[in-house]
């Protein structure tokens, strides 16, 4: 179980997370939705320990990475996770199979002679074959995401964190990735957190959806309840409406602000 309590994260003067409280139950797929810059990816990075919260805590199976100093304990914590990055973050200098099995060297005691066959199996799980010796530069965006997913599941984690898995993909490839996430869910029985602003994807894969806005969780409920939410912020976001309480800054010049400055001057 993943439990976040009062998580606050600041970067200089900017406060990105302003007290996030979220619980992810075992076997659940939680989708975190919200506009760009609302802190979704920051929260994900706090969960895996890439960032440390300034206030509050995140515990995974009762373990808090912020309290860990020994390398072995941190390794034990990270072994529980697979992480799919937004742009896959494959290592350019390595082949596909080396990418997929990279974590096995550090997270497990797997015999290196088995790496190639493991990579082949994991790639098959994400619907890819005969690309073991390709370099990431030779792959399409969708293939990169799938290789990234194969890498995330290679060490057989208990939790998979997805950072915008369908961003930048065409609608068909997005659905392929959604199906893959569901398949992995069934086959590996993992607990997942998916950060996305693709509502179609969220409705399809989530067992629960949490909406983050200005660093706080506005609502957390099953997909059907989110669809019918009466919260004006949630309603505006899930319906994709330009009018509503969520104001998008379209340009730096704001007539109101300029007028106010003119009056003050």
């Amino acid at each position, binding site marked *: 179980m993943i439990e976040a309590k009062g998580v606050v994260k600041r970067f200089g003067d900017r406060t990105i997370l302003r007290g996030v409280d979220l619980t992810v139950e075992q076997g659940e797929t939680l989708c975190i939705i919200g506009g760009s810059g609302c802190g979704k990816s920051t929260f994900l*990075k706090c969960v*895996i*320990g*890439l960032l440390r919260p300034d206030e509050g805590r995140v515990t995974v199976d009762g373990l808090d990475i912020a309290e860990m100093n020994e*390398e072995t304990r941190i*390794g034990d914590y*990270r*072994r529980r*996770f*697979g*992480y799919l*990055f*937004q*742009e896959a*973050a*494959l*290592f*350019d200098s390595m082949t596909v199979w080396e990418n997929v099995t*990279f*974590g096995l*060297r*550090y*997270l497990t005691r797997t015999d290196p002679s088995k790496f190639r066959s493991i990579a082949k199996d994991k790639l098959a799980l994400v619907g890819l074959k005969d690309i073991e010796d390709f370099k990431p530069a030779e792959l399409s965006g969708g293939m990169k995401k799938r290789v990234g997913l194969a*890498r995330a599941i290679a*060490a057989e984690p208990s939790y998979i964190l997805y950072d915008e898995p369908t961003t930048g993909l065409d609608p068909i490839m997005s659905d392929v990735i959604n199906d893959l996430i569901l398949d992995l869910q069934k086959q590996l029985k993992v607990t997942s957190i998916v950060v996305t602003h693709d509502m179609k994807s969220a409705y399809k894969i989530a067992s629960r959806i949490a909406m983050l806005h200005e660093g706080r969780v506005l609502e957390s409920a099953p997909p059907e309840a989110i669809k019918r939410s009466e919260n004006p912020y949630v309603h505006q976001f899930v319906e994709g409406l330009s009018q509503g309480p969520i104001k998008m800054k379209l340009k730096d010049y704001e007539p109101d602000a300029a007028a106010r400055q003119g009056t003050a001057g």
Partner: protein
Amino acid sequence: MTTALFTWVGESLFGIFEGAGQFTFLVRSTIQWLGRRSIEGRQTLVQIVRIGIDSMPVVLLTSFFTGMVLALEMGQTSQHFFNEPLFIGTVVSFAIVMELGPVMTAIVVAGRAGAAIAAELGTMRVTEQVDALYTLGTDPVRYLVIPRVLAFLAVLPFLTVMADFSGIIGGYFVAASKMHVPPNVYWHDIIDNMLPRHFWHGYLKTYVFATSVSFICCYKGITTRGGAEGVGRSTTAAVVMSMVSVLVLDYFATAVLNALGIT
């Protein structure tokens, strides 16, 4: 106006101290990992080949021409004052072995391999590959920084010795062909005057340069922010800071070596 100036000064100072802190943290972290003997042998070998073998031609070429120009200048000057070219071999060898060989090699390698390191690590940072290393159970300092620092420490002294030979041979060609200095005179000028401590003086400096250049380039790369533009900025800053550090540290290293009698 005054407030803006104070803000600018304050922010600049804060940036400098923050950078110094991060740099110190990187050095400390490297020492800690080295203490645990966590060395990526394969990565270190790859970097030795990349930094060493790939830099060799340009190092040899620049040093060869440096030796040639030194011989030319020395030959002309002594011709002017003494009517004959005197001590060309001595001047070329002392200048190359004690000073120009180590400094020129460090600057050339910083420009070539140092820039490549900063650009590579910077790209890895902005494309989240550095974060991916964390999530896959290893540490970027262990996997990226240590192999590059060790490769620099292994390769720069070797390249400097090669550059020393190349520069002295370059000087010999000019001395023999343009100044008509007999070969045995040129070589005797070197052998009769150069002592092992003169060689050590230049050789030991290379370890100082290797440490500073490798850490600066790794630091600038691994702390890159801001996409492709950020990678460009980091790369430029890495090369400029490395070159300046070589020239500044050269003075202090020379002073220390002189104080120790290695001169």
